[in-house]
Protein backbone atom coordinates (compact mmCIF):
# COMPACT_ATOMS: atom_id res chain seq x y z
CA UNK A 1 0.00 0.00 0.00
CA UNK A 2 1.25 3.47 -0.89
CA UNK A 3 0.27 6.39 1.32
CA UNK A 4 0.76 10.07 0.51
CA UNK A 5 0.55 12.47 3.46
CA UNK A 6 0.14 16.16 2.65
CA UNK A 7 1.46 18.52 5.30
CA UNK A 8 1.51 22.24 5.87
CA UNK A 9 4.15 24.29 7.67
CA UNK A 10 2.28 26.76 9.86
CA UNK A 11 2.93 29.15 12.76
CA UNK A 12 2.90 27.40 16.14
CA UNK A 13 -0.57 27.53 17.71
CA UNK A 14 0.64 29.93 20.44
CA UNK A 15 1.82 32.51 17.87
CA UNK A 16 0.49 36.04 18.08
CA UNK A 17 -0.09 36.79 14.42
CA UNK A 18 1.38 40.05 13.04
CA UNK A 19 1.91 41.38 9.54
CA UNK A 20 4.59 43.42 7.84
CA UNK A 21 5.26 45.23 4.52
CA UNK A 22 2.18 47.38 4.80
CA UNK A 23 0.06 44.41 5.95
CA UNK A 24 0.82 42.31 2.90
CA UNK A 25 2.99 39.60 4.48
CA UNK A 26 3.01 37.53 7.66
CA UNK A 27 5.73 38.78 9.99
CA UNK A 28 7.76 35.59 10.41
CA UNK A 29 10.24 37.16 12.86
CA UNK A 30 10.32 35.07 16.02
CA UNK A 31 7.64 32.68 14.74
CA UNK A 32 8.21 28.94 15.19
CA UNK A 33 6.81 26.86 12.35
CA UNK A 34 5.25 23.48 13.03
CA UNK A 35 3.50 20.75 11.09
CA UNK A 36 -0.22 21.60 10.94
CA UNK A 37 -1.77 19.91 14.01
CA UNK A 38 -4.33 18.05 11.87
CA UNK A 39 -1.64 17.04 9.38
CA UNK A 40 0.21 15.55 12.37
CA UNK A 41 -2.77 13.26 12.99
CA UNK A 42 -2.72 12.19 9.34
CA UNK A 43 1.01 11.47 9.51
CA UNK A 44 0.71 9.58 12.80
CA UNK A 45 -1.99 7.28 11.37
CA UNK A 46 0.05 6.75 8.18
CA UNK A 47 3.09 5.70 10.23
CA UNK A 48 0.90 3.32 12.28
CA UNK A 49 -0.39 1.75 9.06
CA UNK A 50 3.18 1.45 7.84
CA UNK A 51 4.18 -0.37 11.04
CA UNK A 52 1.17 -2.67 10.79
CA UNK A 53 1.03 -3.43 7.07
CA UNK A 54 4.38 -2.37 5.66
CA UNK A 55 2.89 0.49 3.67
CA UNK A 56 5.20 3.14 2.23
CA UNK A 57 4.68 6.71 3.39
CA UNK A 58 5.57 9.74 1.26
CA UNK A 59 5.24 13.25 2.65
CA UNK A 60 4.29 16.11 0.35
CA UNK A 61 4.40 19.84 0.99
CA UNK A 62 3.69 22.69 -1.35
CA UNK A 63 5.88 25.44 0.00
CA UNK A 64 9.03 27.46 -0.24
CA UNK A 65 12.45 26.29 0.98
CA UNK A 66 11.81 27.46 4.55
CA UNK A 67 9.34 24.59 5.08
CA UNK A 68 12.10 21.96 4.93
CA UNK A 69 12.61 21.68 8.73
CA UNK A 70 8.95 20.65 9.04
CA UNK A 71 9.36 18.11 6.21
CA UNK A 72 12.49 16.67 7.88
CA UNK A 73 10.55 16.30 11.10
CA UNK A 74 7.91 14.27 9.27
CA UNK A 75 10.68 12.03 7.93
CA UNK A 76 12.03 11.68 11.48
CA UNK A 77 8.58 10.60 12.66
CA UNK A 78 8.63 7.77 10.15
CA UNK A 79 7.82 8.82 6.58
CA UNK A 80 10.07 7.13 4.00
CA UNK A 81 10.61 9.97 1.58
CA UNK A 82 9.37 13.46 0.81
CA UNK A 83 8.49 15.77 -2.04
CA UNK A 84 8.38 19.56 -1.87
CA UNK A 85 6.66 21.49 -4.64
CA UNK A 86 8.57 24.73 -4.71
CA UNK A 87 5.81 27.38 -4.60
CA UNK A 88 4.03 29.73 -2.26
CA UNK A 89 0.82 27.92 -1.25
CA UNK A 90 -1.67 30.77 -1.14
CA UNK A 91 -4.61 29.42 -3.11
CA UNK A 92 -6.43 26.16 -2.30
CA UNK A 93 -7.11 25.30 -5.96
CA UNK A 94 -3.48 25.90 -6.88
CA UNK A 95 -2.22 23.72 -3.99
CA UNK A 96 -4.71 20.98 -4.89
CA UNK A 97 -3.53 21.04 -8.50
CA UNK A 98 0.07 20.47 -7.39
CA UNK A 99 -0.94 17.58 -5.12
CA UNK A 100 -3.13 16.03 -7.83
CA UNK A 101 -0.26 16.25 -10.33
CA UNK A 102 2.06 14.33 -7.97
CA UNK A 103 -0.69 11.81 -7.21
CA UNK A 104 -1.23 11.19 -10.90
CA UNK A 105 2.42 10.19 -11.37
CA UNK A 106 2.35 7.55 -8.63
CA UNK A 107 -0.95 5.91 -7.83
CA UNK A 108 -1.37 6.17 -4.07
CA UNK A 109 -3.95 4.02 -2.33
CA UNK A 110 -4.52 6.61 0.36
CA UNK A 111 -3.96 10.34 0.38
CA UNK A 112 -4.11 11.57 3.96
CA UNK A 113 -4.41 15.24 4.82
CA UNK A 114 -5.41 17.27 7.83
CA UNK A 115 -9.03 18.26 8.28
CA UNK A 116 -7.90 21.84 7.68
CA UNK A 117 -4.76 23.92 7.63
CA UNK A 118 -4.56 26.28 10.60
CA UNK A 119 -3.43 29.25 8.53
CA UNK A 120 -6.17 29.54 5.93
CA UNK A 121 -8.58 27.10 7.67
CA UNK A 122 -10.24 26.37 4.39
CA UNK A 123 -10.72 22.64 4.90
CA UNK A 124 -10.91 22.47 1.13
CA UNK A 125 -7.75 21.03 -0.37
CA UNK A 126 -8.73 17.36 0.17
CA UNK A 127 -12.07 17.76 -1.57
CA UNK A 128 -10.57 19.57 -4.53
CA UNK A 129 -7.86 16.92 -4.90
CA UNK A 130 -10.52 14.19 -4.71
CA UNK A 131 -12.47 15.89 -7.46
CA UNK A 132 -9.39 16.35 -9.64
CA UNK A 133 -8.48 12.68 -9.28
CA UNK A 134 -12.08 11.49 -9.58
CA UNK A 135 -11.97 9.62 -6.25
CA UNK A 136 -14.01 10.04 -3.05
CA UNK A 137 -12.96 12.52 -0.37
CA UNK A 138 -14.06 12.24 3.26
CA UNK A 139 -13.50 14.68 6.14
CA UNK A 140 -13.18 15.05 9.10
CA UNK A 141 -12.10 11.46 9.71
CA UNK A 142 -11.83 10.35 13.37
CA UNK A 143 -11.10 6.64 12.89
CA UNK A 144 -9.57 4.75 9.99
CA UNK A 145 -9.01 1.04 9.51
CA UNK A 146 -7.95 -0.64 6.31
CA UNK A 147 -8.53 -4.21 5.31
CA UNK A 148 -7.51 -5.23 1.83
CA UNK A 149 -8.87 -2.55 -0.46
CA UNK A 150 -11.64 -1.42 1.90
CA UNK A 151 -11.54 1.36 4.46
CA UNK A 152 -13.73 1.52 7.56
CA UNK A 153 -14.10 5.15 8.55
CA UNK A 154 -15.76 7.16 11.29
CA UNK A 155 -16.47 10.73 10.35
CA UNK A 156 -17.66 13.56 12.56
CA UNK A 157 -20.91 15.21 11.53
CA UNK A 158 -22.71 18.07 13.24
CA UNK A 159 -23.81 16.83 16.63
CA UNK A 160 -22.57 13.29 16.12
CA UNK A 161 -20.71 10.80 13.98
CA UNK A 162 -21.16 8.47 11.06
CA UNK A 163 -19.54 5.12 10.21
CA UNK A 164 -18.67 4.68 6.56
CA UNK A 165 -17.22 2.04 4.30
CA UNK A 166 -15.41 2.89 1.09
CA UNK A 167 -13.04 1.31 -1.40
CA UNK A 168 -9.52 2.66 -1.93
CA UNK A 169 -8.18 4.91 -3.35
CA UNK A 170 -9.46 7.69 -1.10
CA UNK A 171 -8.55 11.20 0.01
CA UNK A 172 -9.14 11.76 3.71
CA UNK A 173 -9.00 14.85 5.94
CA UNK A 174 -7.98 13.65 9.42
CA UNK A 175 -8.52 14.82 12.99
CA UNK A 176 -8.29 13.34 16.48
CA UNK A 177 -8.62 10.68 17.77
CA UNK A 178 -7.43 8.93 14.59
CA UNK A 179 -3.98 8.46 16.17
CA UNK A 180 -1.79 9.97 18.86
CA UNK A 181 0.62 12.67 17.74
CA UNK A 182 4.10 11.18 17.38
CA UNK A 183 7.33 12.76 18.58
CA UNK A 184 10.51 11.90 16.65
CA UNK A 185 13.11 9.87 18.51
CA UNK A 186 16.89 10.25 18.20
CA UNK A 187 17.24 7.42 15.69
CA UNK A 188 14.44 8.91 13.60
CA UNK A 189 16.14 12.29 13.58
CA UNK A 190 19.46 10.73 12.48
CA UNK A 191 17.96 8.66 9.65
CA UNK A 192 15.77 11.57 8.49
CA UNK A 193 18.86 13.45 7.40
CA UNK A 194 19.60 10.95 4.66
CA UNK A 195 16.06 10.12 3.55
CA UNK A 196 15.28 11.43 0.04
CA UNK A 197 13.61 14.85 -0.23
CA UNK A 198 12.83 15.67 -3.84
CA UNK A 199 12.12 19.26 -4.89
CA UNK A 200 9.94 19.80 -7.95
CA UNK A 201 8.68 22.96 -9.65
CA UNK A 202 4.93 23.70 -9.73
CA UNK A 203 2.84 22.98 -12.77
CA UNK A 204 1.82 26.31 -14.21
CA UNK A 205 -1.60 27.74 -13.54
CA UNK A 206 -2.62 31.20 -12.52
CA UNK A 207 -3.84 31.51 -8.97
CA UNK A 208 -7.59 31.92 -8.81
CA UNK A 209 -7.42 33.99 -5.64
CA UNK A 210 -4.78 36.31 -4.23
CA UNK A 211 -4.53 38.13 -0.92
CA UNK A 212 -4.43 41.91 -1.32
CA UNK A 213 -3.85 42.66 2.35
CA UNK A 214 -4.20 41.35 5.88
CA UNK A 215 -5.78 42.90 8.94
CA UNK A 216 -5.84 42.20 12.67
CA UNK A 217 -9.11 42.15 14.60
CA UNK A 218 -9.95 45.26 16.62
CA UNK A 219 -9.25 44.69 20.31
CA UNK A 220 -12.25 44.08 22.54
CA UNK A 221 -13.32 46.91 24.84
CA UNK A 222 -12.45 46.76 28.53
CA UNK A 223 -14.02 43.92 30.48
CA UNK A 224 -16.83 44.83 32.87
CA UNK A 225 -16.30 42.95 36.13
CA UNK A 226 -19.27 41.95 38.23
CA UNK A 227 -18.70 41.09 41.92
CA UNK A 228 -19.49 37.44 42.68
CA UNK A 229 -22.06 38.40 45.27
CA UNK A 230 -24.02 40.29 42.59
CA UNK A 231 -23.64 37.61 39.89
CA UNK A 232 -27.36 37.81 39.04
CA UNK A 233 -26.91 41.31 37.61
CA UNK A 234 -24.96 39.70 34.75
CA UNK A 235 -28.22 38.33 33.39
CA UNK A 236 -29.80 41.82 33.56
CA UNK A 237 -26.80 43.28 31.71
CA UNK A 238 -26.94 40.61 29.02
CA UNK A 239 -30.65 41.30 28.63
CA UNK A 240 -30.79 45.11 28.82
CA UNK A 241 -27.30 46.32 27.88
CA UNK A 242 -25.77 43.76 25.52
CA UNK A 243 -29.24 42.65 24.34
CA UNK A 244 -28.09 39.13 23.52
CA UNK A 245 -30.64 37.27 25.66
Amino acid at each position, binding site marked *: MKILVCVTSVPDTTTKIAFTDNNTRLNKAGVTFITGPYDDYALARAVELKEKTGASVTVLNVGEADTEPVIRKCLAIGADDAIRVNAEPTDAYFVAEQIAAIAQETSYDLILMGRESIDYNGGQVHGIVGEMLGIPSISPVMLLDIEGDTAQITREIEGGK*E*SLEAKLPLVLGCQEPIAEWKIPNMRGIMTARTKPLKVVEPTGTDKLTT*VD*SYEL*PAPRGAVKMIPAEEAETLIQLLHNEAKVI
Partner: protein
Amino acid sequence: MSVLIFAELDEGKIKKSSLEAIFYGAKVAEMTGTSATAIIAGPADDAELASAGRFGATKVLHATDPKLTEPNGMAYATVVAAAVQQEGSKVIVLAKSSLADAMTARLAGKLKAGLAANVIELPDLSNGFLVKTSIYTGKAFAHNELKADIKILAIRKNTITPEEKDGTAPVETFTPALNEADFAISVKNTEKSSGDILLPEADLVVSAGRGLKGPENWGIVEDLANALQAATACSKPVSDLDWRPHSEHVGQTGIKVSPNLYIACGISGAIQHLAGVNSSKVIVVINKDADAPFFKSADYGIVGDVFDILPRLTEAVKAL
Protein backbone atom coordinates in the same frame (compact mmCIF):
# COMPACT_ATOMS: atom_id res chain seq x y z
CA MET B 1 -26.21 35.44 -14.62
CA SER B 2 -27.81 34.81 -11.26
CA VAL B 3 -26.30 34.37 -7.83
CA LEU B 4 -26.89 30.78 -6.73
CA ILE B 5 -27.34 29.96 -3.05
CA PHE B 6 -27.00 26.41 -1.83
CA ALA B 7 -29.38 26.06 1.12
CA GLU B 8 -29.31 23.11 3.51
CA LEU B 9 -32.22 21.34 5.11
CA ASP B 10 -32.44 20.00 8.62
CA GLU B 11 -35.39 17.64 8.98
CA GLY B 12 -37.27 19.32 6.16
CA LYS B 13 -36.65 22.89 7.32
CA ILE B 14 -34.18 25.33 5.78
CA LYS B 15 -31.34 25.73 8.28
CA LYS B 16 -31.06 29.11 9.94
CA SER B 17 -27.51 29.53 8.67
CA SER B 18 -28.81 28.90 5.15
CA LEU B 19 -31.45 31.63 5.54
CA GLU B 20 -28.54 33.93 6.34
CA ALA B 21 -26.78 32.69 3.18
CA ILE B 22 -29.91 33.33 1.09
CA PHE B 23 -30.14 36.89 2.43
CA TYR B 24 -26.42 37.39 1.80
CA GLY B 25 -26.74 36.01 -1.74
CA ALA B 26 -29.71 38.27 -2.44
CA LYS B 27 -27.62 41.26 -1.33
CA VAL B 28 -24.81 40.23 -3.69
CA ALA B 29 -27.38 39.86 -6.47
CA GLU B 30 -28.62 43.37 -5.73
CA MET B 31 -25.04 44.71 -5.82
CA THR B 32 -24.37 43.02 -9.15
CA GLY B 33 -27.77 43.76 -10.69
CA THR B 34 -28.82 40.12 -10.99
CA SER B 35 -31.22 37.80 -9.24
CA ALA B 36 -30.80 35.23 -6.48
CA THR B 37 -31.76 31.58 -7.01
CA ALA B 38 -31.68 29.07 -4.17
CA ILE B 39 -30.91 25.40 -4.79
CA ILE B 40 -32.15 22.90 -2.23
CA ALA B 41 -31.75 19.12 -2.28
CA GLY B 42 -33.71 16.57 -0.29
CA PRO B 43 -37.25 16.23 1.01
CA ALA B 44 -39.12 19.40 2.04
CA ASP B 45 -42.60 20.71 1.33
CA ASP B 46 -43.20 23.51 -1.15
CA ALA B 47 -44.35 26.04 1.45
CA GLU B 48 -41.07 25.66 3.31
CA LEU B 49 -39.06 25.96 0.08
CA ALA B 50 -41.02 29.00 -1.08
CA SER B 51 -40.21 30.74 2.20
CA ALA B 52 -36.70 31.30 0.78
CA GLY B 53 -38.44 34.22 -0.95
CA ARG B 54 -38.86 35.99 2.38
CA PHE B 55 -35.08 36.31 2.53
CA GLY B 56 -34.65 37.55 -1.02
CA ALA B 57 -34.53 34.49 -3.28
CA THR B 58 -36.50 35.02 -6.49
CA LYS B 59 -36.58 31.35 -7.42
CA VAL B 60 -35.99 27.99 -5.76
CA LEU B 61 -34.67 24.93 -7.57
CA HIS B 62 -35.65 21.77 -5.74
CA ALA B 63 -33.60 18.65 -6.44
CA THR B 64 -36.04 15.91 -5.50
CA ASP B 65 -34.26 12.71 -6.51
CA PRO B 66 -34.73 10.23 -3.63
CA LYS B 67 -31.03 9.43 -3.82
CA LEU B 68 -30.44 12.91 -2.42
CA THR B 69 -32.41 12.28 0.78
CA GLU B 70 -29.20 11.71 2.73
CA PRO B 71 -26.76 14.64 2.72
CA ASN B 72 -23.88 13.74 0.42
CA GLY B 73 -21.30 16.41 -0.36
CA MET B 74 -20.12 14.81 -3.59
CA ALA B 75 -23.60 14.25 -5.02
CA TYR B 76 -24.75 17.69 -3.95
CA ALA B 77 -21.74 19.21 -5.71
CA THR B 78 -22.83 17.49 -8.94
CA VAL B 79 -26.35 18.88 -8.50
CA VAL B 80 -25.14 22.41 -7.76
CA ALA B 81 -22.72 22.32 -10.71
CA ALA B 82 -25.67 21.44 -12.97
CA ALA B 83 -27.66 24.35 -11.51
CA VAL B 84 -24.74 26.70 -12.08
CA GLN B 85 -24.75 25.67 -15.71
CA GLN B 86 -28.50 25.99 -16.15
CA GLU B 87 -28.65 29.39 -14.45
CA GLY B 88 -25.37 30.76 -15.80
CA SER B 89 -24.41 31.62 -12.22
CA LYS B 90 -21.15 33.40 -11.56
CA VAL B 91 -21.37 33.63 -7.78
CA ILE B 92 -22.27 30.74 -5.47
CA VAL B 93 -23.03 31.44 -1.82
CA LEU B 94 -23.44 28.96 1.02
CA ALA B 95 -23.21 28.83 4.81
CA LYS B 96 -20.27 26.94 6.27
CA SER B 97 -21.12 23.53 7.74
CA SER B 98 -19.61 20.08 7.57
CA LEU B 99 -21.78 19.23 4.56
CA ALA B 100 -21.07 22.58 2.91
CA ASP B 101 -17.31 22.17 3.40
CA ALA B 102 -17.34 18.82 1.62
CA MET B 103 -19.55 20.16 -1.13
CA THR B 104 -17.72 23.42 -1.74
CA ALA B 105 -14.39 21.76 -2.33
CA ARG B 106 -15.77 19.28 -4.87
CA LEU B 107 -17.62 22.11 -6.58
CA ALA B 108 -14.52 24.33 -6.73
CA GLY B 109 -12.71 21.40 -8.35
CA LYS B 110 -15.47 20.93 -10.93
CA LEU B 111 -15.88 24.59 -11.84
CA LYS B 112 -12.31 25.80 -11.39
CA ALA B 113 -13.82 28.41 -9.14
CA GLY B 114 -12.18 31.04 -6.97
CA LEU B 115 -13.02 29.97 -3.47
CA ALA B 116 -13.25 32.05 -0.30
CA ALA B 117 -13.90 30.07 2.89
CA ASN B 118 -14.92 31.80 6.15
CA VAL B 119 -16.27 34.95 4.51
CA ILE B 120 -17.33 37.50 7.14
CA GLU B 121 -18.61 40.51 5.18
CA LEU B 122 -20.37 41.42 1.94
CA PRO B 123 -17.91 41.63 -0.97
CA ASP B 124 -16.30 44.90 -1.99
CA LEU B 125 -16.93 45.34 -5.71
CA SER B 126 -15.43 48.80 -6.09
CA ASN B 127 -12.26 47.43 -7.66
CA GLY B 128 -12.50 43.80 -8.73
CA PHE B 129 -14.15 41.26 -6.42
CA LEU B 130 -12.73 41.49 -2.90
CA VAL B 131 -13.92 39.42 0.04
CA LYS B 132 -12.85 39.56 3.65
CA THR B 133 -12.22 36.20 5.28
CA SER B 134 -11.24 35.06 8.74
CA ILE B 135 -7.84 33.29 8.80
CA TYR B 136 -5.44 31.86 11.40
CA THR B 137 -8.50 30.58 13.27
CA GLY B 138 -9.93 34.04 13.86
CA LYS B 139 -6.58 35.61 14.81
CA ALA B 140 -6.54 37.70 11.59
CA PHE B 141 -8.44 38.64 8.43
CA ALA B 142 -7.46 38.55 4.78
CA HIS B 143 -8.79 40.67 1.93
CA ASN B 144 -8.90 38.23 -0.97
CA GLU B 145 -9.27 39.07 -4.59
CA LEU B 146 -11.24 36.39 -6.44
CA LYS B 147 -9.99 36.36 -10.01
CA ALA B 148 -11.75 33.32 -11.43
CA ASP B 149 -14.84 33.64 -13.62
CA ILE B 150 -16.92 31.68 -11.10
CA LYS B 151 -16.66 32.54 -7.42
CA ILE B 152 -17.70 30.56 -4.36
CA LEU B 153 -18.30 32.32 -1.05
CA ALA B 154 -18.69 30.18 2.08
CA ILE B 155 -19.96 32.49 4.80
CA ARG B 156 -19.43 32.15 8.51
CA LYS B 157 -22.30 32.43 10.98
CA ASN B 158 -23.27 35.99 11.94
CA THR B 159 -21.82 37.49 8.76
CA ILE B 160 -25.03 39.37 8.07
CA THR B 161 -28.32 39.90 9.92
CA PRO B 162 -31.14 38.70 7.66
CA GLU B 163 -34.18 40.91 7.27
CA GLU B 164 -37.42 39.18 6.46
CA LYS B 165 -39.94 40.60 4.05
CA ASP B 166 -43.23 39.36 2.62
CA GLY B 167 -43.22 37.15 -0.39
CA THR B 168 -42.59 33.65 -1.59
CA ALA B 169 -40.36 32.34 -4.33
CA PRO B 170 -41.62 30.06 -7.10
CA VAL B 171 -40.34 26.50 -6.68
CA GLU B 172 -39.15 24.54 -9.71
CA THR B 173 -38.34 20.85 -9.60
CA PHE B 174 -34.75 20.26 -10.67
CA THR B 175 -33.71 16.85 -12.00
CA PRO B 176 -30.11 16.91 -13.13
CA ALA B 177 -28.29 13.72 -14.10
CA LEU B 178 -26.64 12.20 -11.04
CA ASN B 179 -23.23 10.62 -11.05
CA GLU B 180 -23.03 7.00 -9.84
CA ALA B 181 -19.48 7.52 -8.53
CA ASP B 182 -20.78 10.09 -6.03
CA PHE B 183 -22.53 7.28 -4.16
CA ALA B 184 -19.48 5.03 -3.76
CA ILE B 185 -19.25 5.59 0.01
CA SER B 186 -21.76 3.59 2.02
CA VAL B 187 -23.04 4.95 5.31
CA LYS B 188 -23.29 2.07 7.78
CA ASN B 189 -24.48 3.89 10.85
CA THR B 190 -25.26 7.41 12.04
CA GLU B 191 -25.19 8.52 15.68
CA LYS B 192 -26.72 11.91 16.19
CA SER B 193 -27.91 13.56 19.34
CA SER B 194 -31.29 14.80 18.16
CA GLY B 195 -33.27 17.62 19.66
CA ASP B 196 -30.17 19.40 20.92
CA ILE B 197 -29.21 22.78 19.57
CA LEU B 198 -26.37 22.26 17.12
CA LEU B 199 -23.26 24.01 18.30
CA PRO B 200 -22.19 25.58 14.99
CA GLU B 201 -25.72 26.96 14.52
CA ALA B 202 -26.28 28.18 18.07
CA ASP B 203 -26.84 31.86 18.91
CA LEU B 204 -25.97 31.25 22.55
CA VAL B 205 -23.26 28.91 23.85
CA VAL B 206 -22.45 27.86 27.41
CA SER B 207 -18.99 26.31 27.50
CA ALA B 208 -17.05 24.73 30.34
CA GLY B 209 -13.50 23.60 31.00
CA ARG B 210 -11.40 21.62 33.38
CA GLY B 211 -12.56 23.91 36.20
CA LEU B 212 -15.71 21.77 36.37
CA LYS B 213 -13.53 18.97 37.85
CA GLY B 214 -15.39 16.02 36.30
CA PRO B 215 -18.17 14.93 33.93
CA GLU B 216 -20.55 14.31 36.85
CA ASN B 217 -20.67 18.08 37.43
CA TRP B 218 -22.00 19.04 33.98
CA GLY B 219 -25.55 19.27 35.25
CA ILE B 220 -25.05 22.91 36.30
CA VAL B 221 -23.72 23.73 32.82
CA GLU B 222 -26.64 22.01 31.12
CA ASP B 223 -29.16 23.69 33.43
CA LEU B 224 -27.89 27.14 32.47
CA ALA B 225 -27.78 26.16 28.78
CA ASN B 226 -31.34 24.83 28.93
CA ALA B 227 -32.63 27.95 30.68
CA LEU B 228 -31.04 30.09 27.96
CA GLN B 229 -31.85 27.63 25.14
CA ALA B 230 -28.13 27.61 24.44
CA ALA B 231 -25.85 24.90 23.06
CA THR B 232 -23.14 23.42 25.28
CA ALA B 233 -19.43 23.37 24.41
CA CYS B 234 -16.16 22.50 26.12
CA SER B 235 -12.39 22.99 26.06
CA LYS B 236 -10.06 20.47 24.45
CA PRO B 237 -8.83 18.71 27.62
CA VAL B 238 -12.44 18.10 28.58
CA SER B 239 -13.14 16.20 25.35
CA ASP B 240 -9.69 14.54 25.44
CA LEU B 241 -10.59 13.22 28.91
CA ASP B 242 -13.91 11.98 27.47
CA TRP B 243 -15.88 14.08 29.92
CA ARG B 244 -17.80 15.43 26.94
CA PRO B 245 -18.19 14.32 23.29
CA HIS B 246 -15.61 15.46 20.78
CA SER B 247 -18.27 17.31 18.79
CA GLU B 248 -18.48 19.85 21.65
CA HIS B 249 -14.80 20.77 21.63
CA VAL B 250 -14.22 24.35 20.50
CA GLY B 251 -10.98 26.12 19.67
CA GLN B 252 -8.14 26.11 17.24
CA THR B 253 -8.31 22.34 16.80
CA GLY B 254 -12.03 22.05 17.39
CA ILE B 255 -15.22 23.71 16.24
CA LYS B 256 -15.02 27.43 15.54
CA VAL B 257 -18.03 29.30 16.81
CA SER B 258 -19.23 32.87 16.40
CA PRO B 259 -22.43 33.08 18.46
CA ASN B 260 -24.03 36.22 19.90
CA LEU B 261 -23.09 35.09 23.40
CA TYR B 262 -20.32 32.78 24.62
CA ILE B 263 -20.21 32.02 28.36
CA ALA B 264 -16.92 30.40 29.44
CA CYS B 265 -17.05 28.60 32.80
CA GLY B 266 -13.85 27.35 34.42
CA ILE B 267 -11.82 27.77 31.23
CA SER B 268 -8.41 29.44 31.56
CA GLY B 269 -8.41 31.10 28.12
CA ALA B 270 -5.40 29.52 26.39
CA ILE B 271 -4.63 31.11 23.03
CA GLN B 272 -5.71 27.92 21.23
CA HIS B 273 -9.09 28.05 22.95
CA LEU B 274 -9.57 31.76 22.26
CA ALA B 275 -8.78 31.23 18.59
CA GLY B 276 -11.98 29.28 18.09
CA VAL B 277 -14.31 31.55 20.04
CA ASN B 278 -12.99 35.11 19.86
CA SER B 279 -15.30 36.17 17.07
CA SER B 280 -18.30 35.71 19.38
CA LYS B 281 -20.19 38.99 19.76
CA VAL B 282 -20.28 38.99 23.57
CA ILE B 283 -17.99 36.91 25.79
CA VAL B 284 -18.65 36.23 29.48
CA VAL B 285 -15.95 34.64 31.63
CA ILE B 286 -16.52 32.98 34.99
CA ASN B 287 -13.34 31.84 36.71
CA LYS B 288 -12.21 31.64 40.32
CA ASP B 289 -8.76 32.93 39.40
CA ALA B 290 -8.77 36.71 38.86
CA ASP B 291 -5.57 36.36 36.81
CA ALA B 292 -7.03 33.86 34.31
CA PRO B 293 -5.99 35.11 30.85
CA PHE B 294 -9.54 34.73 29.52
CA PHE B 295 -10.64 37.91 31.37
CA LYS B 296 -8.49 39.95 28.95
CA SER B 297 -10.68 38.77 26.06
CA ALA B 298 -14.02 39.08 27.84
CA ASP B 299 -16.78 41.67 27.78
CA TYR B 300 -18.18 40.65 31.18
CA GLY B 301 -16.36 38.80 33.92
CA ILE B 302 -17.11 37.27 37.30
CA VAL B 303 -14.33 36.11 39.61
CA GLY B 304 -16.02 33.28 41.46
CA ASP B 305 -16.63 29.58 41.89
CA VAL B 306 -18.66 28.03 39.07
CA PHE B 307 -20.39 25.71 41.54
CA ASP B 308 -21.80 28.76 43.30
CA ILE B 309 -22.30 31.10 40.33
CA LEU B 310 -23.86 28.88 37.64
CA PRO B 311 -26.95 27.77 39.61
CA ARG B 312 -27.59 31.39 40.57
CA LEU B 313 -27.34 32.52 36.95
CA THR B 314 -29.77 29.76 35.94
CA GLU B 315 -32.29 31.03 38.49
CA ALA B 316 -31.81 34.61 37.28
CA VAL B 317 -32.46 33.55 33.68
CA LYS B 318 -35.64 31.73 34.71
CA ALA B 319 -36.78 34.90 36.52
CA LEU B 320 -36.40 37.07 33.39
